[in-house]
């Protein structure tokens, strides 16, 4: 177990380093530079700024200085917004995105799993049809449409929840609903499939032969075995959600990290993009790492080969 953890840890670190390197050089392939804007269009103005930020040095030298700072955990300063350090941006926007992501996860996953179980148990009856249709709708409607509809109906027309901004818990409800719509849908579908697969296993028949109650059989035997494959996708899903979603943050104007991913790439803000990508990369890689550990804990059959 320990040897596996150390090996996996090493692989994760290498992966994050590769992500940073690939992204660093990939960005430089994009023509143009972060300083070009409608007000700065003169070449010598741009060259001066390049020199100030050290972008005129040879690429490999920039790479080494960047990697040096990265090891110290310093993501450097944004090129487009002078004075705004990437660390500061992450520190102030990540908690918001994380909270929204967490709320969506804690609401979405249990609900989705529960619906999946119910629709598997009530197989073929109306409830099963209903949840099935709901889960397929949940996946097939793009999130900006769901967001707009929720905002229009629940926010504006009925006025139950504030339409936008991020001021109190009631402000988080509509964005959380939008995000968790997709989560509920996908988890309901996959849980239903898994429950049906486990349904045909023999140990359920043994459990019934022991005279156990139906609820006990479902919870202790069926769900416990069905939930295991669900864990694999959890890592990337959690990591993805915590990084914030551009769509929800734009429509509900939430000061999250999602929008920074898009605007920084469109604006070629090298340090910002790299900082966000490395931060997300680390999160994803270690989320997967934790998920593998969780896998071992939950499923005794998996001995680390």
């Amino acid at each position, binding site marked *: *177990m320990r040897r596996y953890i150390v090996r996996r840890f090493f692989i994760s670190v290498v992966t994050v380093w590769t992500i940073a390197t690939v992204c660093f050089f990939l960005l430089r392939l*994009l*023509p*143009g*530079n*972060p*300083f*070009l*804007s*409608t*007000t*700065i*269009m*003169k*070449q*010598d*103005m*741009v060259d*001066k700024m390049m020199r100030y*930020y050290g972008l005129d040095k040879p690429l490999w030298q920039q790479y080494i200085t960047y990697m040096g700072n990265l090891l110290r955990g310093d993501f450097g*300063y944004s090129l*487009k*917004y*002078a*004075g*705004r*350090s990437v660390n*500061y*941006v992450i520190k*102030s926007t990540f*908690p918001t995105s*994380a*909270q*929204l992501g*967490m709320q969506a996860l804690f609401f979405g996953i249990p609900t989705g799993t529960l619906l999946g179980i119910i629709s598997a148990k009530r197989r073929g009856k109306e409830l099963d049809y209903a949840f099935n249709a709901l889960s397929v709708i949940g996946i097939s409607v793009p999130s900006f449409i769901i967001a707009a509809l929720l*905002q229009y109906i629940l926010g504006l027309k009925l006025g139950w929840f*504030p*339409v*936008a*901004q*991020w*001021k*109190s818990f009631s402000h*988080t409800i509509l964005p959380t609903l939008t995000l968790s719509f997709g989560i509920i849908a996908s988890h309901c579908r996959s849980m239903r499939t898994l429950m049906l697969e486990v349904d045909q296993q023999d140990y359920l028949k043994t459990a019934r032969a022991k005279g156990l109650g139906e609820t006990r059989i479902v919870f202790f035997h069926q769900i416990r075995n069905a939930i295991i494959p669900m864990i694999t996708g959890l890592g990337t899903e959690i990591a993805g959600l915590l990084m914030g979603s551009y769509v929800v*943050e*734009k*429509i*509900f*104007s*939430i*000061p*999250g990290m999602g*929008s920074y991913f898009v605007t920084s790439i*469109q*604006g*070629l803000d090298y340090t910002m993009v790299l900082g966000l990508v490395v931060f997300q990369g680390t999160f994803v890689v270690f989320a997967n790492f*934790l998920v593998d*550990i*969780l896998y071992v*804990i939950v499923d005794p059959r998996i001995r680390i080969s």
Partner: protein
Amino acid sequence: MKKLRNLLLVLLVATLLFGTISGCNTYSGGSTSTPDQSTEPTSSGTDNENDDNGSGTEQPTVKETTFTFVGDQPNTLNMILSVSNIDSHIFYLTSAMLFRPYDGVSYPEVCEDFTVSEDKTVYTYKLRDAQYSDGTPITAEHFAYYLLARLDPEMGSPMAADLINTYGFLNAAAYNAGECSREDVGIKALDEKTLEITLERPIATFDGKLDIYPLREEFVKEKGEALGGTPDDLEYSGPYILKEWVLDGYMDFVKNPTYIDADKSFPTTNIRMVISSDHNTRVTMFENGEVDCLMNVGNDYLDILKDYIEHNPGGGHQAIQFNRLNQDPAKAAILGNKNFRKALSYALNREAIVAATNPSSAPLTRLVSSNHAGIREDSLFTEDFTPNTVPAAGDVNKAKEYLDAALQELGYSSVSELPTLEYLTFEVPTYRLIAETVIDQWKQLLGLENISILLLPVPQAIQAMMTYDYDIYYTSLSSGDDPIEILSMWVTGGTVNDITGSGRNLFENEKYDELVAEAIVTFDRQKRMELLAEAEQIILEEGPIEPLIVDGIYYAVAPYVEGFVYSSDYYQFNYLVVNK
């Protein structure tokens, strides 16, 4: 082994819990200090009002009022590297100024008075006593450093060229090129209270009222790269102190008692700028009364807020630029052909296009836009002089004539023989809509089939433009404060004409250059305007660009707000009162 597993389990649960706990107070900072529903008359923000950092004097109990509005988040508050007027909106609130412009007129603030030499090249300013929020007095050295820092080649400020062109301080260009030291530049602090500015040559349009800010060199050195990043990386000498800045969330300002004219102006004690990138969210907040003013109302929502919105015309100019220096000789010939340009321009019904694609803007058929002063201070340049140019509604028959003339000159028998031209523009929704409409109008009216559209993010689009790697480019130029600023862009070697400074000009016309050069040094207003009008007529005829649209902005103000003045450069809340 079992112990290890339990440890891991605990670790995992901890990270999950930590995620939620650390997350759940992200907005607590926000909600405590802001009145949720600002329907309450006074700001009941729990933060105690008078804990201004460092001010010794006991603040007189003034009526607590809060002004909440939706504005654009500044790119940076680093005065040296700041580029766009979005940032100057904030500097206007946080920093004192030599001359503070309000509603189109510059009033002296830190400057008591100033004298000008006969040859109008030396300007000497006397300063009043003013101080930063931490008590240190503002000296002439600070104002001098503000200008010198922006010219300093090491500080990487992109605005150096702009300063040199507009004001032409003595040896400024040389200093910026690193050929001389700071002392030689015509910006000196003779003593604590006097500032002397020397120009290389007299400039007619410079009235001496510099709207510059004080900047302390040791503060800049101390902050280094972090300058202007967060509220505590900023000097406060202006009417307000930036108390809190949540990225993409809001900016809270509180009145600065140590400001020089604190008692005379800026009556509102608290200002909250809400940042929201989605127009629909902004409008809904305005309707719910959560905000008192929207600095920019989206085109789709104009009729929803029709009884609150007002229009401000002074935005940037959008024009179609033809690349005469195209690598492909055939295309260069076409794009350089005057009749072809005129055909394309006359075919467009600017009024209809603006009404459909961007109602907050206005049709533009000339280079000088409507809000520039004309012969007299109060008359408009556009009213004094009307060049003969394309009618706003377009003229299809003339367009066809021009086209036939162009085809004839270029030796093509029909439109379909023309090579495919690429229309390059920014990846902005309104620009995309305009591009699609313009292309289709040319197709319908002129039969011009083969034009393709290339949408690129801003940096890539400008990079392509700067390397002359385009055919038709939908450009956006700043409209400046004076006709001379716009026309001097197109002088041979001008900032836009010869974009890379490599000597390749899109538009070379000696007559035009002479007229503009002469206008710059002509102090007689009437004469200067006539020269400029003549120059504008020339470029409208021969120029490589066809003006299309002048950007405008609709802003919305709640009825209970008085003394609101809109400015595209500054948040002029000097006499703004919120009596809700």
